[in-house]
């Protein structure tokens, strides 16, 4: 961290799992003087707390994927993790790297937003914690200071969730659109977050507001899907046209809400004081 603090901006590139950074180096999108790998830091952990899961930022995604409790308790996160590359890539890629890179096409950021994830950040002036939403700024740009690192990501574990995506298979592994949904016991209940949008992944509060209860009607779900398509800012790029993405979002939002509803236990949310 001393190295980061001493060096001018852009001179040191921070390496998480390398799946984005090494590509950017090859393409000469960046030209750092040094590369700082976080691999040997003791941040490869997964810690279950009473109401939260703390994921060390350098833990490979493969470790998340193989954790049975992640699959059953955070199905949306598990699905998003599974959507990233193949197994040998997931043994390399990290959640911290994906978040720090801040790509609008990230498959992990939408579910972090939907689950109200927080990032724990260490830097020269100490430790701070902030919602993932406030960490993201624009495409591939975060509010991280030049000498700050993401140490861990903290996720509440009680929310049923899902993540759905569409991509150009088998041509390209990058999602055209990704939709994460989650529902929490306290109102307003629903979270809908989109990836593949510009300039960054974001929650769609206008669409969320259409879902007025834990178990919304078909009509409300439809309104939310339409509203999401109307509000999201898409662009046309090599992966999809703007119009196609808009159509996709309607379908994916509808399906993602339904999937989350199917995952909700019968007696949910649990009554206060109940075990």
């Amino acid at each position: 961290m001393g190295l980061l603090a001493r060096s001018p901006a852009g001179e040191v590139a921070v390496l998480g799992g390398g799946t984005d950074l090494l590509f950017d180096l090859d393409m000469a999108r960046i030209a750092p003087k040094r590369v700082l790998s976080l691999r040997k830091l003791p941040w490869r952990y997964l810690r279950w707390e009473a109401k939260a899961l703390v994921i060390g930022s350098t833990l490979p995604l493969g470790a998340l994927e193989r954790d049975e409790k992640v699959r059953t308790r955070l199905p949306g996160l598990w699905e998003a993790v599974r959507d990233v590359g193949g197994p040998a890539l997931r043994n390399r890629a990290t959640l911290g790297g994906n978040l720090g890179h801040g790509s609008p096409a990230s498959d992990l950021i939408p579910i972090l937003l939907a689950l109200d994830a927080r990032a724990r950040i260490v830097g020269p002036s100490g430790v701070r914690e902030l919602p993932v939403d406030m960490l993201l700024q624009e495409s591939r740009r975060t509010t991280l200071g030049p000498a700050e690192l993401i140490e861990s990501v903290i996720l509440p574990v009680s929310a049923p969730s899902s993540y759905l995506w569409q991509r150009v298979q088998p041509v390209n592994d990058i999602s055209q659109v990704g939709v994460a949904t989650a529902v929490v016991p306290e109102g307003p209940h629903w979270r809908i977050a989109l990836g593949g949008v510009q300039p960054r992944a974001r929650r769609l509060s206008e669409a969320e507001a259409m879902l007025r209860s834990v178990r919304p009607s078909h009509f409300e779900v439809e309104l939310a899907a339409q509203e999401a398509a109307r509000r999201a800012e898409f662009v046309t790029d090599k992966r999809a046209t703007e119009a196609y993405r808009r159509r996709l979002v309607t379908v994916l939002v509808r399906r993602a809400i339904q999937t989350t509803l199917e995952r909700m236990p019968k007696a949910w949310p649990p009554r206060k004081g109940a075990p």
Partner: protein
Amino acid sequence: MNEGPLAFTLNGKPRRFERVPDAERLLDTLRWRAGLKGTKEGCRTGGCGACTVLVNGEPTLSCLVLSHEVAQEKVTTIEGLSTEKVGRRVIEAFAEAGAVQCGYCTPGFVVALAAQLGSGTPPPSVETLLEGLEGNLCRCTGYCAIRKAVETAREATR
């Protein structure tokens, strides 16, 4: 960029390389410094699986690893696997099933499959094994023969 010495365990033996640049990939160190050409360079962007090796026993894309990151760690390549029982059986299964056409993707498939078959008994289901190969691309065989090889290898290592 700087350079410096690098030591790690390669196929069970301690190896040391001098003056390895900071930005060198494990893939290049294996092929050009260690002379182990079994590990292939396909896309070099983490998309094809041809460069898969084991790092501490886990399938890892060597094109996405900087060599200095594996300092003091254990790397196993296709050459190392070919001297081990499970690796041998997987290689034989690929040969028997004719799951090799141009052969460029084969080492990556073998490493990714052997890692799954070597990591405990009983072996995972064929479907699980195939999911473990979803990051490996083959542009010749159409995957039917590879599937056959997976089934044969699974039977052979039970």
